[in-house]
C-alpha cells in the first residue's frame, strides 16, 4: 500500500514526495493561506494515504471480529491482524511476535505493566526508579502502584543541560530497585538517553527495565534485543499509525508469568463460574474485541516507515535538528530548553520566547498555519525543574523540511511584533 514514489535511490528522504503521501498536509486549512506546517508530531503524527486506505479497505471489505469466526471475512481480518503483529515485531526486532501486545497507546501499555507485573513484583518497601523527565504516563501509573503497594519511587536527577545524571542513577541503583522505567527520548526536551547503558547498569543491579519508547520507536531504529530491556511501550499513532493503536513488547518469560490485566473474552483458556485459566500470550492481555482495523493500520504504518528506512528517518531528523538550532538561535529572546547540541538530541524543540506565554505563541503561529504545541507536555515535574509552567514545542517528522523551520522562525517574529518586544 505504500506509495510507489521511489525513494530508495537517494540517501536523503525526498520530503516533497513524502508530503504528497499525507492528505492532511495537502489541503487548504484556511482558504488562500499557506500550506500547513505540522510541527506537533510528538503529540500524534499525521497518517499517510497508505494507512488511511488500509483502514478504509478493512471496513469496506473484511471488517469482522477476529479469532472466532469460521467465515471468510473473519479469517482475513484475523490473518491481517496477526500479520500486523509480525510487522511490528520485526520493526523492533522482537524475538517473537507473541511478545507484542496491541494496546491503545503507550499509556495503556505502561499501565498494563504496572497493574499486572507491578502488583505481583513490587511490594512494600521496594524501590522503583524513574527519572525527573518522565511523561505523566510513565510516572502516574507508578505513583498509583507505589501508593497501593507501599513502595517508594526514586527519581534520577537531570543535569543542567537536560541529560540524565548517570552517577545519580548509580547511587539509586545501590538501593536495588525492582524496576527502572525511563523514556528513551524525552518528549519535552528532545534528549535521547543512552538507553543501552542505562539498561545495562539497571540489569547489573538486578532491576527489571521498562523503556517508554513513545518518542524513540517512531524516530530511530529501535532494537529490543540490543537494548536489552524487559518491556518497551510505544504508540502507533505517533508513528504514522491510526489513533487508538499502541504496543507493549515484553520478554516472553515475564509476560507468561504475569497475571492478566483486564479480564474478558479472548483472554481465557477455560472459564468456570468458580474460576478461570488464561490463554497464551499475547491473547492473555488482549481482552475483548480489539481495535482490529487500527492494528492492521499500524502494520501499514510500519511498512511505510520501513520502506523509508529508519536509519534515514533518523538522519533526516538529525539534519532538521541542526538547522532548527541554527535558525532558532537567530530569534531574539528565545531560549531552547534541553541539550544545546544536536548530538544525542531528537528533533523536538521546547522553547520560551521572552515572557510571552506559550499559548499565545501557539495561537499566533496557528494563525499562520503553523501547528505547534503549548503546555506542560505532560511533564509537569520537569517543567518545575525548568522553572516554568509551560513551553512552546515544535517537533519534526519525515514530512517536515527546512521550509517548515523558516516559517516557524518567521512566525515567531510575528509573535514578538504583536507582543511589542520587537
Amino acid at each position, binding site marked *: 500500500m505504500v506509495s510507489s514514489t521511489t525513494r530508495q535511490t537517494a540517501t536523503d528522504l525526498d520530503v516533497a514526495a513524502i508530503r504528497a503521501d499525507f492528505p492532511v498536509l495537502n489541503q487548504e486549512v484556511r482558504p488562500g493561506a499557506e500550506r500547513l506546517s505540522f510541527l506537533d508530531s510528538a503529540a500524534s503524527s499525521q497518517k499517510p494515504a497508505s494507512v488511511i486506505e488500509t483502514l478504509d479497505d478493512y471496513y469496506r471489505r473484511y471488517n469482522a471480529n477476529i479469532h472466532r469466526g469460521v467465515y471468510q471475512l473473519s479469517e482475513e481480518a484475523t490473518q491481517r491482524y496477526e500479520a500486523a503483529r509480525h510487522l511490528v515485531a520485526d520493526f523492533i526486532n522482537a524475538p517473537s511476535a507473541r511478545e507484542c501486545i496491541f494496546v491503545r497507546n503507550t499509556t495503556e501499555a505502561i499501565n498494563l505493566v504496572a497493574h499486572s507485573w507491578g502488583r505481583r513484583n513490587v511490594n512494600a518497601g521496594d524501590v522503583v526508579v524513574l527519572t525527573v523527565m518522565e511523561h505523566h504516563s510513565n510516572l502516574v501509573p507508578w505513583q498509583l502502584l507505589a501508593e497501593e503497594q507501599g513502595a517508594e519511587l526514586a527519581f534520577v536527577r537531570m543535569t543542567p543541560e537536560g541529560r540524565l545524571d548517570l552517577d545519580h542513577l548509580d547511587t539509586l541503583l545501590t538501593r536495588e530497585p525492582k524496576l527502572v522505567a525511563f523514556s528513551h527520548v524525552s518528549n519535552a526536551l528532545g534528549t535521547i538517553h543512552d538507553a543501552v547503558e542505562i539498561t545495562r547498569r539497571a540489569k547489573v543491579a538486578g532491576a527489571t527495565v521498562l523503556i517508554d519508547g513513545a518518542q524513540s520507536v517512531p524516530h530511530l531504529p529501535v532494537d529490543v534485543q540490543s537494548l536489552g530491556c524487559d518491556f518497551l511501550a510505544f504508540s502507533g499513532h505517533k508513528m504514522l499509525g491510526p489513533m487508538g493503536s499502541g504496543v507493549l513488547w515484553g520478554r516472553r518469560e515475564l509476560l507468561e508469568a504475569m497475571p492478566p490485566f483486564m479480564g474478558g473474552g479472548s483472554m481465557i483458556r477455560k472459564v468456570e463460574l468458580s474460576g478461570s485459566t488464561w490463554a497464551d500470550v499475547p491473547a492473555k492481555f488482549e481482552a475483548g474485541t480489539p481495535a482490529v482495523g487500527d492494528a492492521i493500520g499500524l502494520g501499514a504504518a510500519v511498512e511505510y516507515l520501513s520502506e523509508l528506512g529508519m536509519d534515514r528517518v533518523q538522519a533526516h531528523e538529525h539534519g532538521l535538528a541542526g538547522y532548527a538550532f541554527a535558525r532558532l538561535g537567530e530569534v531574539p529572546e528565545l531560549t531552547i530548553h534541553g541539550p544545546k547540541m544536536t548530538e544525542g538530541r531528537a528533533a523536538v524543540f521546547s522553547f520560551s520566547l521572552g515572557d510571552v506565554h506559550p*499559548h499565545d505563541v501557539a495561537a499566533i503561529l496557528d494563525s499562520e498555519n503553523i501547528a505547534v504545541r*503549548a503546555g506542560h507536555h505532560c511533564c509537569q515535574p520537569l517543567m518545575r525543574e525548568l522553572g516554568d509552567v509551560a513551553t512552546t514545542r515544535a517537533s519534526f517528522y519525515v514530512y517536515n523540511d527546512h521550509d517548515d523551520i523558516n516559517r516557524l522562525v518567521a512566525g515567531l517574529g*510575528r509573535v514578538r511584533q504583536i507582543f511589542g518586544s520587537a
Partner: protein
Amino acid sequence: MADSLYKEIILDHYRSPRNKGRLDPADYSHEDVNPLCGDEIVLDLRVKDGIVSEVAFEGRGCAISQAATSILTEMIEGRTVEEVKALTKDDLLEELSVPISPARMKCALLGLKCLKAGIYGVGHMHDDDL
C-alpha cells in the same frame, strides 16, 4: 485570527493587569489550575455588607487568562454577592469582546472558575457549570 484575538483590550490588560496581588486576610479565596497547560490563578475577595469591596488575583498564564481575570475583577468590584453569583461565562466573554476558540475557553474562564468556586465554597468548578 491572531489580529482579532490579540486586540488592544487583551494586550492592555495583560501588560497592566488591574487588581494584581493578594488580599490578606480575604473573605473568599480560591486557587485553580488549568490542567491542560498548568496555568494557575489565585483570586481573593473581600466582602463588606454583601458587596465586593476588594478583589485581587495572582497567577501566571497566557494573555487570555490574565487579561480575562483582570477584566473580571473590574466587573465585580462594587457588585453585590448575588450579582456576582449571577454572572455567567457569557457575560465575561462579552466583556472580553474577542473571539475565544474552544481550545482557549479554559484559559478565558480560569479566573471565573476561581471566583465561582470561592464564592460558593466548593472545591472545584466545572466549565459547564459556569
